[in-house]
């Protein structure tokens, strides 16, 4: 009978599925060992290409093969017989040539980079282009800004692995216990005298899952984002972006006030000095983007300078000139933050779209910008070496600026060396401004001369060890420490800017707080739940190093928020507002922002307080995503997007050999066929078997 038959079928099917999955979830958890906390390479796209890694939807599985020498590579590429494999490599072996040979072998389904931190650091480890932001900034106006010969590139150790499209997932494993498990498992199951021996054994395998939704290029995936089904809309990629942090030294006067004489600033051309630094960096792996030299040193110097300048200039004084502090997001990706600010300034909508009905300061334009100092790739140079100053054109303003710097630097044991004006500026936000207005008297202060001395630019190894930072935590700071050096640089910068603002050298006694510098570096490099960040009102930050990846437009990263609130905490003036009133009234007060801080800096026992500040945020989203119908292939603005992914997981397990799998399957099929045959047999003879009475 049909029904009987059918029930048997269901029973068999269910039984088979039971067989294949013996005891469900809990046993499954025992079969797989999750490699938690592994960092995955993900896919990024620009207007024309896709970069990064992706796995298949259900993940890529491969037999582990640990690569410690070139012979291991050869074995894997030439001799191995049980593909697919997952290559497990140390950072020192993780090179472009290795990846290319693995990719072309067709046997490799994934790569796991293992680094427990204690191992010796490779000589260099930078996956960025040898010429970062090669196609943006000044190159748009002036052609290639990077050295033509490969020897003269900014980032000689750059391998461009980050800017290639890999067809397998790459994971970065840092936990020692996981690395041990990988080794143990490999040793137990995979090490064989002869490659053919692997065919008959169950082998230790990794499943890497990092499926990326987006593909082709930003144009295509942005377009696909807009397709809807009846009830849902699928997201493929999100534009990169975040928030820029900006602050003026003096509050700016509103248009209405400017008619009357007021103590607030009304800008004239070239009156605003800019001190800029970038807020973001880059690496191959999601969630692991340290950036000691790349960003942190510049950020903390800028914040400390802002704090010092506020101390040096009493609130009662008022000057014609102002200083704009800029912390720019997304600079690693073709200058997202700065290009947006330039775009806004050009269109007269920075910081906000003018609204005649409310009292607001007039927009800042590019013509307002006077001296422009960008801090980039700062580090403590070797003893006796100077910091380098790069500039595009020689001009009296830049000469004056450099002379101020040099003079003030002498007091603080900071030497500067100004390089001859050159079209080949290092990658910096200033390039974006210069591309729009080449006569801005801008300089870039860097530690390096014509090549990065940082061998770990835009990589996971540009971490705290890269600048040899030791947290003093209130005790005396060593004389050769990075803290001290940056403190001295802060003093130099502050005094220089003071001269710009007031027109006279600083004679007071205010100097930058060394313990503040110590704390700032500690917060940015080691513990993002440090007391400073907590005082600034961010109590929920995780207790781990910050990640300086720019993030996507809809989910701005943590770094801008923390930096902004720290700026506000250190420079804001205390008000008597309570928490509910601690915000500005947009229709009457667009000069100040109000920040509800947990406590005052250096006084964590103080009560919560409402701070009035000129610090503010602006969107760091590329104009490419603002301009209607922007041509994504034109290359004018950054078109970077990040793919959406459902999950990034890595699992370790023992994979049965192919023959074993085949046997299991055929056994199952046999049982199924036999049960069908049995049912058929019984059915045919049912009269005999089931005769009633």
């Amino acid at each position: 009978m049909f029904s009987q038959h059918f029930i048997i079928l269901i029973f068999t099917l269910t039984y088979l599925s039971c067989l294949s999955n013996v005891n469900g979830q809990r046993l499954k958890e025992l079969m797989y060992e999750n490699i938690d906390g592994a960092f995955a390479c993900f896919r990024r796209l620009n207007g024309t290409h896709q970069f990064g890694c992706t796995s298949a939807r259900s993940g890529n599985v491969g037999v582990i093969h640990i690569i410690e020498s070139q012979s291991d590579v050869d074995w894997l590429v030439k001799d191995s017989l049980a593909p697919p494999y997952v290559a497990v490599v140390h950072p020192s072996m993780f090179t472009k040539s290795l990846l290319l040979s693995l990719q072309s072998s067709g046997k490799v389904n994934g790569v796991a980079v293992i680094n427990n931190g204690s191992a010796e650091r490779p000589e260099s480890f930078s996956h960025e282009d040898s010429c970062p932001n090669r196609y943006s900034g000044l190159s748009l106006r002036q052609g290639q800004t990077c050295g033509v010969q490969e020897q003269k590139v900014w980032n000689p150790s750059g391998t461009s692995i980050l800017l290639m499209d890999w067809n397998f997932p790459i994971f970065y494993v840092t936990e020692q216990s996981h690395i041990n498990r990988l080794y143990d498992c490999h040793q137990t199951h995979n090490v064989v005298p002869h490659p053919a021996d692997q065919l008959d054994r169950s082998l230790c395998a990794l499943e890497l899952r990092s499926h990326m939704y987006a593909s082709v290029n930003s144009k295509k995936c942005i377009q696909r984002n807009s397709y809807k089904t009846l009830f849902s809309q699928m997201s493929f990629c999100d534009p990169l972006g975040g928030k820029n942090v900006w602050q003026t030294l003096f509050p700016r006067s509103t248009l209405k006030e400017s008619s009357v004489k007021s103590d607030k600033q009304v800008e004239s051309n070239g009156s605003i000095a800019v001190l800029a630094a970038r807020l973001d960096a880059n690496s191959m792996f999601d969630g692991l983007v340290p950036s000691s030299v790349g960003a942190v040193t510049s950020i903390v110097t800028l914040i400390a300078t802002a704090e010092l300048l506020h101390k040096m200039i009493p609130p009662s004084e008022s000057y014609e000139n102002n200083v704009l502090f800029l912390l720019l997001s997304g600079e690693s990706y073709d200058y997202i933050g700065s290009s947006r600010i330039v775009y806004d300034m050009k269109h007269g909508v920075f910081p906000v779209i003018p609204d005649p009905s409310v009292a607001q300061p007039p927009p800042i334009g590019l013509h307002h910008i006077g001296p422009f100092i960008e801090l980039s790739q700062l580090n403590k140079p070797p003893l006796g070496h100077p910091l380098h100053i790069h500039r595009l054109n020689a001009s009296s303003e830049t000469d004056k600026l450099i002379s101020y710097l040099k003079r003030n630097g002498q007091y603080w044991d900071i030497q500067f060396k100004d390089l001859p004006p050159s079209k080949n500026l290092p990658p910096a936000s200033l390039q974006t401004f210069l591309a729009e207005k080449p006569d801005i008297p801008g300089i870039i202060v860097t530690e390096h001369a014509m090549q990065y001395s940082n061998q770990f630019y835009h990589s996971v190894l540009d971490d705290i060890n890269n600048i040899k930072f030791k947290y003093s935590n209130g005790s005396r700071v060593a004389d050769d420490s990075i803290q001290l050096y940056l403190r001295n640089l802060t003093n130099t910068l502050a005094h220089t800017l003071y001269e710009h603002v007031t027109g006279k050298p600083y004679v007071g006694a205010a100097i930058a707080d060394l313990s503040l510098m110590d704390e700032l570096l500690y917060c940015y490099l080691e513990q993002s739940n440090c007391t400073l960040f907590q005082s600034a009102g961010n109590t929920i930050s995780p207790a781990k190093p910050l990640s300086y990846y720019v993030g996507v437009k809809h989910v701005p990263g943590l770094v801008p928020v923390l930096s902004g609130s720290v700026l506000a905490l250190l420079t804001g003036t205390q008000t008597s507002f309570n928490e509910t009133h601690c915000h500005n009234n947009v229709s009457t007060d667009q000069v100040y922002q109000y920040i509800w801080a947990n406590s005052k800096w250096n006084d964590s026992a103080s009560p919560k307080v409402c701070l009035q500040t000129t610090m503010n945020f602006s969107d760091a989203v590329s104009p490419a995503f603002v301009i209607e119908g922007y041509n994504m292939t034109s290359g004018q603005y950054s078109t970077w997007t990040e793919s959406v992914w459902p999950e990034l997981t890595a699992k370790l397990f023992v994979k049965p050999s192919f023959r074993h799998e085949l046997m299991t399957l055929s056994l199952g099929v046999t049982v199924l066929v036999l049960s069908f045959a049995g049912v058929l047999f019984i059915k045919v003879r049912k009269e005999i078997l089931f005769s009633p009475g």
Partner: protein
Amino acid sequence: MSGLIDESAGLMDGHIHESRARGDDFDEGRDVNPDRRQKERRSRPRPEHAENINDGDINSGPGPAGDQSAEWLNDQEELRYGAQHVIKLFVPVSLCMLVVVSTISSIGFYSKKDGIYLVYTPFHETSPQTSTKVWNALANAGILMVVIIIMTIGLILLYKYRCYMVIHGWLILSSFILLFIFSYLYLEECLRAYNIALDHITAVLILWNFGVMGMICIHWVGPLRLQQAYLIFVAALMALVFIKYLPEWTTWVVLGVISIWDLVAVLTPNGPLRILVETAQERNENIFPALIYSSTVVYSIIGTVNNESAGSSSGVQMDSPGDTESGFVPSWREEASERESARRRAMDEEEVQIRPRNSRSHNDVANELGLGDGEHQGDDQQRRQPAGRSPFRIREDEERGVKLGLGDFIFYSVLVGKASSYGDWNTTFACFVAILIGLCLTLLLLAVLKKALPALPISITFGLIFYFASTLLVAPFSDSLAVNQVFI
């Protein structure tokens, strides 16, 4: 549905009652009481010699001694029929569960909680505390129950005051939503799960064809198998929606509460379902074609309409669309929202019923056989032989059957599907078996008690017990056995 209510003593006791009638008055049955015309309760697959035994039974029927033995035989036969019906119900119930379980395990969408829940479950069990979750679940289930009760009463009022148009409109709207919108969702999630690029044209064509065919099958006429398939699929869809959009604990509480409600609605003197059925019986008419799902899967004999219409009132009904569907009636009055389904389920309690459909004269049978040439050949042969022996045999019209509300299908599937959503096949299988055992027991009780019984309580109770027993006891135990490699 129609058949089940007007003919016979009604749903409640039809089964056994009928069987008794058959032995005694097989001769006059067709004349005296068309509705109660006796019929063979043999289902098609019965072996030949079983029929012979029945022959003897019938022949000896009139005698005083034969009376007793006939009764005994009737009882025995009845039990066998009961078994047959159970098997017949197993198939659709299992199919429905199979659809749900396979969907749950292959399409992540239906087991993933994305924070969207039914309107009727305002408490989302977000608290980590067990006590809060418990009262959330209880409150949700309470709200859902109230909605179900109100809807049930509404339906009964509508029926009592003969607002058929409203009810039919409602049914059609519900099935429309299910067949188009929910199928659309299902298609979309299938495509997403398997990452298939389907073009709009094909997608629209598929949905349009699928939906329209479904509407035709359920509300008008269509091949029986197709209709059954649609009903099963629609029940599965509804179950999937419940699994997806009910909070975790609420689902389990709702399953429990609904079984209790089932019990009340069917068994208490003023239970809504009882009132509904009684009203329908009084009126001697169909309730709604789309209300009840009957296990009478196969019409084993070709009824000629001529005879039917001439001979009996039920013949008239035969012609009506309602009756054409009565063989396997969709008790599908599912609204898009769950409340309705739940309510409907409450009404469509399982009833076992035997519908003595037609007894026909020998001539009729001959006609039928003539027609039967091109029909199901195996069936015909089976029929033909007894036909030669006795006219009586031939009228083995198997239209009586166990009726199971689609709502029961849904809640069975919800239980099994929910169990499978945790990824443990042992538990899933345990729940599946538990529900089928519960079904058997219910049917057994039906034979004993001879009245309409709720289908949910026993099955769901068993299912819940098995579920919690196997997740909390068996699975950890077998896991630790497996871990320690006891079997090796």
